[in-house]
């Protein structure tokens, strides 16, 4: 068919047509080729720098190497807060064929909680492609071996090792050390976000919080080459992190555990200080909690339980608990009175078992009244007043000094203002005077309140640490230090900062200490019960503080009132008297009286002073 038509065609004309179209095609090809060349020229020459940067940014990633947190050791170098390797199980969605099924598998194998799953979902929403999203945190070696041993074989599962905080002694030290927790959004408001890139934990409470800037260290960086899947192929450049500084404490682990054991189930607190440095040898608040619970985030129910408990385990009673100091202030008042000439060591006060303000009917009872129906003796001097804790003596003294002078002489001992110890949450206590009451309560000061203040009751409040601090002043005859838990930060000594010396006659110190020695070593002393078998001399002072005010002249019956309304028992002491090496303050909440506190102190002093080492 085509052949027959061929005969009729004008081949030359067709050739001419083809030729003109070929020329048009060549023109078009040239133009298109020109566009292509221009495009490649524009990409490779004009925009080369931009794309080179882009290409480097693609492959080079700056990775943060978080610093290793400083560790905390006791005075003998035993680890109290350590960095423990744990494992994190994460998922790379892109490497799994069925991510949803993988999550289900992991949920079952690791028995993930709803809370963990929710956190995982939240993290998943912020992820980048090929990024590992953690699903299970804080698995230790054993857990990894049992539940997750073959998990890394599942496509998409990544098992990473990282350091987390571990408190090997748990409850015994939680109040001293505090704890770290996951860095939260609120934390980042006050922390330098740049220094915390890649860091998971930050101090929340206690030493961990107070020394956070030193414990944290400085992150390092490395430039790594990665492929499109984010896998690191090689390290191009590296700046090593600076690890956090280690803290060495004054605290002695053995003594701390002895103090915990001595308190037993008794609610309360113990503070033991080294009078030569102000260093905290032991600091216990009971009940306590396990700081390890907080490290990876405490569960809501656990936290609710701690928060809701009537026993307030989260309260560090040693520095946050404020109690009426009771008779433990008597030696301090005595010193002030001696210095200001209100009394001499020989001043005698008649003691019928009660005191009455001139022109007032109200009788202020001595504690002996309900036991013996009488006072301590016909006439009581300073030594006996301290040894037997004669209330009448101090009612009279307080009345003569007046509240403002009393507050003035007590302040140098550290009452009414926080000591400045290196932990968090410390309270001021209250050292009342007329100004304070007008400002705080808007009321005038009544003379009867001065009488209560004379035996450390009423508005007066002090923390166990403040009492220990004041006792240090007594032990050192005027000298004292800002209490400090930490001795050294790496090689730098931070403890042992001196406070202003309280100048006073040697005779005055002597007189008061004599009374305090009698508290323990005289048969009539209020803590004579702890003197049995003691191989050294103790100077102490008992105290009992009322939880509820008892109606005038009512007979105080311990059994009749509920346990939580029972008096707090207090005891402060130092030993040995001639060469003090330990100061102890004990409070036994609702212990009934000082009898619940003084044996605790004895046990702690025994433990410390029997130590062969003289550190």
């Amino acid at each position, binding site marked *: *068919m*085509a052949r027959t*038509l061929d005969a*009729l*065609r*004008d*081949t*030359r*004309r*067709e*050739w001419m*047509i*083809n*030729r*003109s*179209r*070929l020329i048009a*095609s*060549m023109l078009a*090809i040239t133009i*298109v*080729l020109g*566009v*292509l*060349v221009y*495009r*490649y*020229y524009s*990409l*490779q*020459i004009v*925009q*080369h720098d*931009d*794309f*080179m940067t*882009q*290409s480097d940014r*693609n*492959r080079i990633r700056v990775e943060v190497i978080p610093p290793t947190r400083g560790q905390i050791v006791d005075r003998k170098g035993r680890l109290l807060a350590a960095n423990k390797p744990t494992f994190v199980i994460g998922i790379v969605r892109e490497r799994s064929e069925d991510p949803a099924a993988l999550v289900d598998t992991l949920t079952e194998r690791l028995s993930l909680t709803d809370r963990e799953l929710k956190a995982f979902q939240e993290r998943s929403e912020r992820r980048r*492609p090929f990024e590992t999203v953690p699903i299970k945190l804080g698995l230790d070696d054993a857990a990894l071996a049992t539940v997750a041993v073959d998990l890394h074989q599942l496509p998409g599962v990544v098992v990473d090792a990282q350091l987390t905080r571990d408190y090997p002694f748990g409850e015994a030290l939680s109040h001293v050390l505090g704890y770290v927790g996951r860095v939260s959004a609120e934390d980042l408001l006050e922390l330098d976000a740049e220094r915390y890139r890649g860091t998971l934990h930050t101090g929340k409470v206690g030493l961990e919080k107070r020394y956070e800037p030193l414990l944290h260290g400085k992150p390092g960086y490395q430039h790594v*080459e*990665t*492929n*499109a*899947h984010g896998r690191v*192929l090689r390290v191009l450049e590296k700046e090593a992190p600076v690890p956090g500084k280690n803290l060495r404490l004054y605290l002695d682990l053995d003594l701390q555990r002895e103090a915990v054991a001595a308190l037993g189930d008794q609610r309360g607190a113990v503070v033991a200080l080294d009078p030569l440095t102000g260093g905290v040898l032991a600091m216990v608040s009971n009940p306590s909690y396990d700081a390890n619970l907080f490290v990876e985030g405490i569960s809501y129910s656990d936290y609710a339980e701690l928060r809701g408990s009537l026993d307030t385990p989260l309260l560090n009673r040693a520095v946050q608990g404020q109690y009426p100091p009771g008779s433990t202030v008597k030696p301090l008042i005595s010193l002030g009175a001696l210095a200001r000439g209100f009394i001499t060591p020989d001043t005698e006060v008649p003691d019928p078992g009660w005191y009455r303000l001139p022109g007032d009917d109200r009788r202020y009872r001595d504690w002996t009244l309900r036991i013996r129906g009488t006072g301590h003796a016909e006439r009581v001097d300073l030594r006996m007043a301290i040894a037997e804790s004669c209330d009448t003596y101090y009612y009279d003294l307080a009345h003569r000094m007046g509240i403002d002078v009393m507050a003035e002489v007590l302040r140098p001992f550290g009452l009414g203002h926080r000591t400045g110890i290196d932990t968090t949450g410390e309270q001021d206590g209250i050292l009342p005077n007329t100004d304070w009451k007008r400002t705080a309560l808007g009321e005038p000061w009544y003379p009867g309140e001065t009488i209560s203040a004379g035996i450390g009751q009423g508005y007066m409040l002090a923390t166990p640490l403040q009492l220990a601090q004041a006792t240090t002043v007594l032990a050192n005859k005027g000298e004292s230090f800002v209490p400090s838990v930490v001795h050294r930060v790496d090689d730098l000594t931070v403890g042992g900062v001196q406070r202003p010396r309280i100048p006073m006659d040697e005779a005055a110190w002597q007189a008061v200490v004599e009374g305090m020695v009698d508290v323990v070593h005289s048969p009539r002393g209020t803590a004579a019960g702890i003197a049995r078998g003691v191989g050294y001399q103790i100077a102490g002072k008992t105290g009992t503080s009322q939880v509820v005010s008892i109606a005038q002249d009512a007979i105080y019956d311990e059994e009749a009132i509920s346990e939580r309304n029972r008096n707090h028992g207090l005891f402060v002491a130092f030993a040995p008297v001639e060469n003090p090496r330990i100061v102890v303050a004990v409070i036994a909440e609702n212990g009934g009286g000082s009898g619940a506190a003084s044996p605790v102190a004895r046990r702690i002093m025994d433990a410390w002073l029997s130590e062969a080492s003289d550190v």
Partner: protein
Amino acid sequence: MSEYTRFLEGSDRDFARAQTPAERLHLDVVLLLPMLAIMTTGLFVLFSASDGDWDTVNRQIRNFVVGFAVLLLLAQVRIDTLQRWAPTLYLGALLLLLLVPFFGVGAKGAQRWLSLGFIRFQPSEIMKIAMPLMVAAWVVRHALPPRPSTTVTALLIIVLPAAAIATQPDLGTAILVGASGAFVVFMAGVSWWQIFSGALAALVCIWPAWLFLLRDYQKQRILTLVDPEADRLGAGWNIIQSKTAIGSGGWSGKGYLQGTQSHLDFLPESQTDFIIAVLAEEWGLRGVLLLLLLYGLVVARGLWISFTAQTSYGRLLASAITLTFGVYVVVNMGMVAGILPVVGVPLPFVSFGGTSIVTLLLSFGILSAISTEKRVLSR
């Protein structure tokens, strides 16, 4: 007129000369030399793109060998034989194409393959050859330029299989197949006003095509072209990464086997459709220009073959094959560089893949046949 005369003189010279081995095998050496150079370059780039995988390179060499066998075979076939068989081939291919939706197998949501049990093939690849053969055969039934009625029928012949392929969906092949037919019509001398009105009509057709013919992913690719940053990690990823690879190559490149974009897996499809980005990254603009030069030589030789062909059929066929080859190159390099939508067109003789290489070499066999037939006839 003068060219025509010179061409006649040239053929006299050919007649006088003894036949070279290449001529005896009906091979066009001037066409094959730049083509071999491209293939060699391609093997080097593929070696790098596959991260030094000899297996991939060997399989590509096998593709080349099979393709050459086909080329050699086709070069021996007489052009008028092809012309006679064109309608049969076309109708057969069309039938197979229409069977694909019913019996086809496929992957990634596209049905392109027919399986005969022992062999799987794409009817659209057969159509790549059949289309120019058929359209050329159709328009040369009457004297050129074609009458309007012939043109309209020719367009029907083009659109029917192109649309079938586009709905598979395989937009890249549809464009190549459509273009190869359209080039025949263009070369046949359809008047310019007809071309323009046709182009206008095509533009009008884009609207319904956008609505009904294009799949979501195809629309996405076109939208991505306009703003690749809109979906950095999704559809835009390929283009951003390929542009980065090309751009970071600069004038002299990062060095052979040193491309970070390709070797660190940032560049997708680096052995197939996006292989030019590997070359551009490692060899720089120098390499790109060299490759373009080689392609230019092939196209120039192809057009020369068309220029000197004895019959209108040969001329139309040669130019359609050559221009389609040019479209391959331009569409591929354009899409990788981000000025054309990503439509899945391989870079001829460089991209890894058996089917396209065999089909391309088959068409080069036809070109060779056309190139050598003029001499046979002139004897």
